[in-house]
Every structure is written in structure tokens, then in C-alpha cells.
């Protein structure tokens, strides 16, 4: 396209100061009007702004995190003493299943996606995500899934077959009632929303980057999100099939997992873990994306080994698909195959090692300023490295045969997931809270929060290694006094309360800071990436003039006369679309505005899957409903943005810089 060349090279223009300010003021008002968000109940169902959707995601996911924590506490109370009768086995089984399901599907994955949905557009300098309505749809599907699970749980219909619901235990013959059906459908909901989120993130990161942000200037946060999204895209279909087969086995008598009719129980394990292991990295890789910016900001120096880090992220993503079988070493699998998966499982320690070393090298060379976010990252190092090492042990077939499915594994997975994801996540909360709310969290409370969580965590989970070696299997609702597991369990249970105390401090800190925290300003940490280049909290349109990036650390490397993007309409919802590799401007893309239809499609999806538990006909009806809603989505004011233009009384053709900003000769 010939005109593109003209578009690409920066032009120097001369303008009068007052004129400039006047224009800016006018444009700001126009942008405010164009990007106005519907509020109140209507806003709840129609608002497609990526920031408010992400905020809802985060709040919802955190609420589920609290629920999951409460369940964990109940379990710890039950296991505090041998032969305790605090919970009945039936209750206990439901609770640990719901705990695992909540933490994996309703907390970890969504909250990581949410961070991406909030920050990817800001970090790449876009006005919104690529597909805001899909984004909204994803959120509602996720919310409904979560409510479904917990409604079931409260009605004594909580799933009770473990968070990976192995057949035949979860199959029709051994899980009567609707408990497991609810689990299976909840899985469907969360995976739909995860997939939607993945598509949105990739689209945004690939096509909506500010001019100059070539792929090798992409912030590591965004890289992590992209890798994660691709993992989701290739992993989720597997669990989609697993839960689909399970549901159809239970509801319409298919025989996928019925050995008597040629089905196979191991098939389920393959399908589940082909998703389930990448899942761990889907949770963990975004956390790596939090760690890099935090370290860079507080070490006050450039990242050590950017390329190495990116490559290790990508290779983690690939290898992550090669080790699902190490969850199944106790099943009849040929020795040779097992050793291959051992090799793969150990190989994945290499990229992790590279990352750890690069970060330590970064810290080493920096002028450290240890604030709470960095503190949490340091906690991550201590905990995650230990978890990673036990992971290497589990990767070895023979060792795995001893410690698999024991409390050792419980310890390992909590070290990896809490150490690897939750600690960085809390660090990220402290780091980005000012950007969300414009206020700082209390530093003092932050330190209390960290130390309570760090000490509590190790008290809970470190003894579990020993318990596992002493032969305590996981998922037991009680144990005999003779086994001598009492003391360590008691320690763990006490630790659980300290850990809970840490989380409580955080909640209080947030509530306090929300209203009375110190006002933050745009860039309280003097950080380098683009999200800090706008106000906190950012305006609905994110940036007045989309920035032009000149290096990996846009703010740190910004020159005095840093160019900006001009010519996007201020009266239509537009953002700049650039080329994938080197971010050259290509299109002025219309961003669709608020719409009710995504939430209605989500509701009809809900009808389809939830009523489908009770009668197959609901699938048909729900599909038709969804079809209708989608039709309206397609036909219903497709060019909303033009309408806003009309509302603002201007012709939608009016785009481009104000006349006084037309380029003059350079």
C-alpha cells in the first residue's frame, strides 16, 4: 500500500503553544465522550472496557481464592488430629475437590488472564483489546461457571471425585447424582473463558502494538502472556474433550471410559494431563511476566539477558507439553516411554534455571530498593526453587513411584504454585495497585503481609514433604493415631492459620488503601514500561496520543522530542493496528463499543450447559438461544462507534489531526 510509507516516517510540525493546548483540551473532552463507559447495572452487562472487565475478573477470582482458602483451612482443621470427626468423609471429599477445582480453574488461570487483559493493551500502547466484546463474553462465562460450582457445593452437590476427577470413580457407575456433572460443566465454562481470553491477548499483543515496539522490544510481561495464551490454545481442547467424554458417558451412555465396551480409563488420564500439566505452566508463566518488570524497576537497571529470558519462556511453553505422563508413572506404561518423559520433565528445569540465574544477575548488578513487591519476588525465589527441586525428584520414575500421590506431592505442588504464582501475584498487586486505583498500598502492612505469608506457608507445606515420605497418601479425610503423622499435621495446621493471617492483612491493606492510601501519581516507582506513561487510574481511552516506542524501556529511553501518533479519530472508537514483526502502522481499527449481546450469549451458553445436565434437549434449546443472541450481536449496531460520533454531533468521517496540526515542511 503506497500511502503507508508516507504514514510511517515521523514528521516535525510547528504549532503555537496555546493552540496546541486548546486542541488537546478539546480532544480530551471528545475522547471522554467517545469512550464513555455505561455505568450501573447496565454497565455490568454492557461495559466492554478492558480495564473494568479485568478488574471484575481480578475481584471475582480473588473472592474465589478466599473461598478456596477457607476450604483449605477446614481441611487443615480436620487433619489437625488423628481420627478427628470435625468433617464427615463425604464433606471432606467434596471440600478438597472444590478446593482444588477453585484454585486451579476459578482462581489461578482467570486471575492471570485478567492481569493480561488489564495490562497488555496498556503495555503495548493500545486504546483497548482487540476483541472487547469477546472479552466481556469470556468474563460472564467464567463468572457463571464459578457460581455454578459453588451453588452446587452449597446444595450438597459439590463434586467429590478430586480436581482431576479420574474415571471410573467420577464415571456414571461410581458417582451417582449430579455432582460430577456440575464439575464437568464448570470445566467447560472456565475453559471457554480461558480460550476467549487467550485469543484476545494474542490479537492485542500481535496487532495493536504502538509504532516502534518491535517484537524484540516487547515487554517480558507481554511475552509471558503471549506464550501462556498459545499454551491455552493447544492445551484446553484436550480437557474440553476429557470433560465432554465424561459428561456424555454420564448423561447419554457413551462408552469412552467403559472397559467392558472397549473404553479405557487411562485414556481419560492422558487427555486430562495433556491439558493438566501445561496448565501448571499456564498458571506459572504469567507470574514470570510479573517478576521481570518488578526486578527491573527495583534493581534500577536493564534486564540481564532479555533474549535468553524470552527464549526460555518459549521453550518452557514447548517442553510443557512433553511431560504429562509423569503424572501417570504408576499406571502400566512401557519403561522406555517413561524414561523419555523423565528426560523431558528434567529438561524443563533448564529454562527455569536460565531464568532464575538471569534474574539473580540482574539483581546483582542493580542498585536495589527493596520494597514489598521485590520482597515477594525474593520470597518467590526461596519457595519456587525448592518446589522446582522436588519437581526434579518427581520427574524421576522410580522416585515418583515412592512419593507420587502422597503428601510429598501436595507439598511440591503448593511450593510450585503458591511459590511460583501466588507470591509473584501478591508482588504484582503491590506493584500495580497504584495504577489500578491511584493510591499506594501501605508498605508497613506489606511487610507484615509478606512475612506472615512466607513463614506461614513454609510451616504448612514443608512438613508435608516428610509426611509423604512417612507414607501419608494425599486425599485422606483422616488417619490412625498409630501412624504417627499427628505432630507434623499439627504443625501444618497451625501454619495454615498464620498464612491465612497474612492474606487477611492484605485484604485489610487493600480496603484501607482504596480510600485512604497515599495518592500515587502516574509513575510512583519510576518504572520503565508504557502503562506508567498514562494517568493512574488510566482514562477509558488509555492514552491521549498513542506513544511511539524507541527501545525496550520506553519511558527510560524516551528522548526529549519523542514522537507521538496523531490522526486517530477522537470521536470514534479507534485504535492503531500495526504490523506483527516490526510494528509499522497499518490500519485505524474500529473498536466495537458497549453491547448487551455478549452477556446474553453467555447466559444462553449457561442454559445450554447447565440445563444440559438434566435433559439433552436443553443443549438444542440453548444452542438456538445462543444463535439468536449471536445474530443480534452480528446485526445489532455493528458500527456503534459511528453512532457515538453522530451523538456528539460530528460527521464520523472527521478523523485525523486537527487542521492546525497538519504537517508542515520539515
Amino acid at each position, binding site marked *: 500500500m503506497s500511502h503507508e510509507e508516507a504514514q510511517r516516517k515521523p514528521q516535525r510540525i510547528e504549532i503555537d503553544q496555546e493552540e*496546541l493546548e486548546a486542541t488537546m483540551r478539546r480532544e480530551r473532552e471528545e475522547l471522554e465522550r467517545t469512550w464513555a463507559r455505561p455505568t450501573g447495572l447496565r454497565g455490568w452487562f454492557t461495559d466492554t472496557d478492558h480495564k473494568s472487565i479485568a478488574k471484575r475478573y481480578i475481584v471475582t477470582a480473588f473472592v474465589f481464592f478466599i473461598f478456596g482458602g477457607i476450604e483449605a483451612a477446614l481441611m487443615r482443621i480436620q487433619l489437625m488430629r488423628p481420627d478427628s470427626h470435625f468433617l464427615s468423609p463425604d464433606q471432606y471429599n467434596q471440600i478438597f475437590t472444590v478446593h482444588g477445582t477453585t484454585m486451579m480453574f476459578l482462581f489461578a488461570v482467570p486471575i492471570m488472564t485478567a492481569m493480561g487483559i488489564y495490562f497488555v493493551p496498556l503495555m503495548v500502547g493500545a486504546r483497548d483489546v482487540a476483541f472487547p466484546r469477546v472479552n466481556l463474553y469470556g468474563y460472564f462465562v467464567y463468572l457463571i461457571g464459578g457460581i455454578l460450582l459453588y451453588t452446587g457445593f452449597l446444595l450438597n452437590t459439590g463434586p467429590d471425585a478430586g480436581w482431576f476427577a479420574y474415571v471410573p470413580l467420577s464415571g456414571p457407575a461410581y458417582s451417582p447424582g449430579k455432582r460430577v456433572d456440575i464439575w464437568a460443566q464448570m470445566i467447560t465454562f472456565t475453559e471457554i473463558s480461558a480460550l476467549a481470553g487467550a485469543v484476545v491477548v494474542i490479537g492485542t499483543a500481535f496487532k495493536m502494538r504502538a509504532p516502534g515496539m518491535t517484537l524484540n522490544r516487547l515487554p517480558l510481561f507481554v511475552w509471558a502472556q503471549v506464550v501462556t495464551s498459545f499454551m491455552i490454545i493447544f492445551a484446553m481442547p484436550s480437557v474440553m474433550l476429557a470433560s465432554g467424554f465424561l459428561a456424555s458417558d454420564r448423561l447419554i451412555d457413551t462408552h469412552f471410559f467403559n472397559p467392558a465396551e472397549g473404553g479405557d480409563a487411562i485414556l481419560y488420564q492422558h487427555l486430562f494431563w495433556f491439558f493438566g500439566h501445561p496448565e501448571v505452566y499456564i498458571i506459572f508463566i504469567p507470574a514470570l511476566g510479573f517478576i521481570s518488570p518488578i526486578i527491573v524497576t527495583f534493581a534500577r537497571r536493564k534486564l540481564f539477558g532479555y533474549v535468553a529470558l524470552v527464549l526460555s519462556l518459549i521453550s518452557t511453553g514447548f517442553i510443557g507439553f512433553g511431560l504429562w505422563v509423569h503424572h501417570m508413572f504408576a499406571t502400566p506404561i512401557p519403561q522406555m516411554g517413561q524414561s523419555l518423559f523423565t528426560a523431558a520433565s528434567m529438561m524443563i528445569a533448564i529454562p527455569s534455571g536460565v531464568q532464575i540465574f538471569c534474574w539473580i544477575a540482574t539483581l546483582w548488578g542493580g542498585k536495589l530498593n527493596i520494597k514489598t513487591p521485590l520482597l515477594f519476588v525474593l520470597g518467590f525465589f526461596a519457595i519456587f526453587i525448592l518446589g522446582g527441586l522436588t519437581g526434579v525428584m518427581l520427574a524421576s520414575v522410580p522416585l515418583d513411584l515412592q512419593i507420587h500421590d502422597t503428601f510429598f506431592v501436595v507439598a511440591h505442588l503448593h511450593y510450585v504454585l503458591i511459590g511460583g504464582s501466588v507470591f509473584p501475584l501478591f508482588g504484582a498487586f503491590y506493584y500495580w495497585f497504584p495504577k489500578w486505583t491511584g493510591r499506594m498500598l501501605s508498605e508497613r502492612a506489606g511487610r507484615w503481609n509478606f512475612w506472615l505469608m512466607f513463614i506461614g506457608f513454609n510451616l504448612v507445606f514443608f512438613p508435608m514433604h516428610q509426611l509423604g515420605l512417612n507414607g501419608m497418601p494425599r486425599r485422606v479425610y483422616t488417619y490412625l493415631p498409630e501412624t504417627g503423622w499427628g505432630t507434623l499435621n499439627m504443625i501444618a495446621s497451625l501454619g495454615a492459620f498464620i498464612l491465612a493471617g497474612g492474606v487477611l492483612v492484605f485484604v485489610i491493606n487493600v480496603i484501607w488503601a482504596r480510600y485512604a492510601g497515599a495518592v500515587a501519581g502516574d509513575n510512583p516507582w519510576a518504572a520503565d514500561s508504557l502503562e506508567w506513561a498514562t494517568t493512574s487510574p488510566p482514562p477509558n481511552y488509555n492514552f491521549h496520543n498513542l506513544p511511539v516506542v524507541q527501545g525496550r524501556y520506553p519511558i527510560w529511553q524516551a528522548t526529549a522530542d519523542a514522537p*507521538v501518533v496523531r490522526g486517530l479519530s477522537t470521536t470514534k472508537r479507534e485504535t492503531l493496528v500495526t504490523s506483527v514483526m516490526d510494528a509499522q502502522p497499518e490500519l485505524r481499527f474500529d473498536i466495537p463499543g458497549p453491547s448487551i449481546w455478549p452477556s446474553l450469549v453467555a447466559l444462553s451458553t449457561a442454559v445450554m450447559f447447565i440445563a444440559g445436565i438434566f435433559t439433552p434437549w436443553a443443549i438444542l434449546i440453548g444452542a438456538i438461544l445462543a444463535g439468536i443472541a449471536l445474530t443480534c450481536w452480528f446485526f445489532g449496531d455493528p458500527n456503534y462507534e459511528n453512532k457515538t460520533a453522530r451523538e456528539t454531533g460530528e460527521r464520523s468521517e472527521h478523523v485525523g489531526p486537527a487542521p492546525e496540526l497538519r504537517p508542515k515542511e520539515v
Partner: protein
Amino acid sequence: MSTQVVIDVSELPHHEFDTYDPVWWGNNLLLTIETSMFGILIATYFYLRQNFPEWPPPVAQLTATLKPLPQLGYGTANTILLLVSCIPMVLTDISARRGNRGVSQIGLVVGVMCALGALVLRGFEFSAMYFRWDSNAYGSVVWFMLGMHMMHLAILTVEAILLAVWIFTREYDMKHRVDIVTIAIYWYWVTAIWLVLYAIIYFTPRLG
């Protein structure tokens, strides 16, 4: 006077075909998801096959000589129909790029006809199996494969109909020309996937 360096993008277009447009990316990412789903489904098919001494399993009512292989008729017809339906879609695709409204309209209509025909044929295909989904694992997985593909066929048809209605009743603007090209891609994908499934469901059992 103060100076300001700007990149003026006011002349850029709103929509462009293929990799320029985020819609293209969204669509192809969805197709990637579905492709990996079908990939795993096919893996499942062959995994389950290991559990059967005979594939498909023998049926008591049939004589020993006659194996309950899926009958070729409808499946083959369906394959041909889908392949044929690609011709109008290619025309629609090209015309959309050239901006030739008439051809796009005709192409879409013909395509939709074919798709509807394919849906009907698929109905018969299920009956051409000797097994129901609840007979055994073989029946389950084959019905699941046919069903999954049928679902995509249905979605494709509905989308095509909507798009046709649009370009008949409303403006034939760049946005919707891009949509036409996108749906064409989807169309080719559905056909391609079917060719694979067709080979697997109908011929791998015959290879013994």
C-alpha cells in the same frame, strides 16, 4: 512556536484483507483451537482402537463374512458436495477482494445451498453406521467425530446465511468484504478437516 514530532496516521484505511486485519487473526486462532481439538479427537480414535481385536467390533446379527464397516455412500456424497461447495466460495472470496458485489452474493447463496445439503447428508451418515453412540466405544468416538464436525458445519452455514442476508440488505462495505474472506477461510478449513475425518472414519478400518 513549539515543535512536535508526530506520526500522522489519519490516512490509514480501516480494514484490509488477510494478516493486516485483527479479525483475520481472531478467526485463525479459533480455527487453531478447533484444529488441535480434532487432532486430539483423532488420537483418541486410534487410542481406543488398540482395545479392539476387530475394528469396528463384530456384530452378532451380521454374517461372519460381512464386517460392520461404515457404509461409504452418504459419506462420499458429503465429501464431494463439500468439495464442490468450495468452488463458489473461492469465487466469493476473489470477488470480495475485487469488490464485486453480485458475484459475492451468488457465490454465498450457492455455498449456503451446498452447506444445507451437506447437513442433511450428515443426518443420513449417522444412520449409515452399524453402531449407535451407546453401543460401544467405537460407536461413541465415531459419533462424536461426526457430531463435532456437524457442529462446525452448522455454525458455518448460519454464519454464511447471516452474511448473505447482510450483503443483500445492507451496505457491501470493506468491513463485510473482510468478513466474507474470513468466512471463506473457515469454509476451506471445514472442508479440509472433513477430508481427514472421512479418510479416517471410512478408510482406516478398511485398511484392516
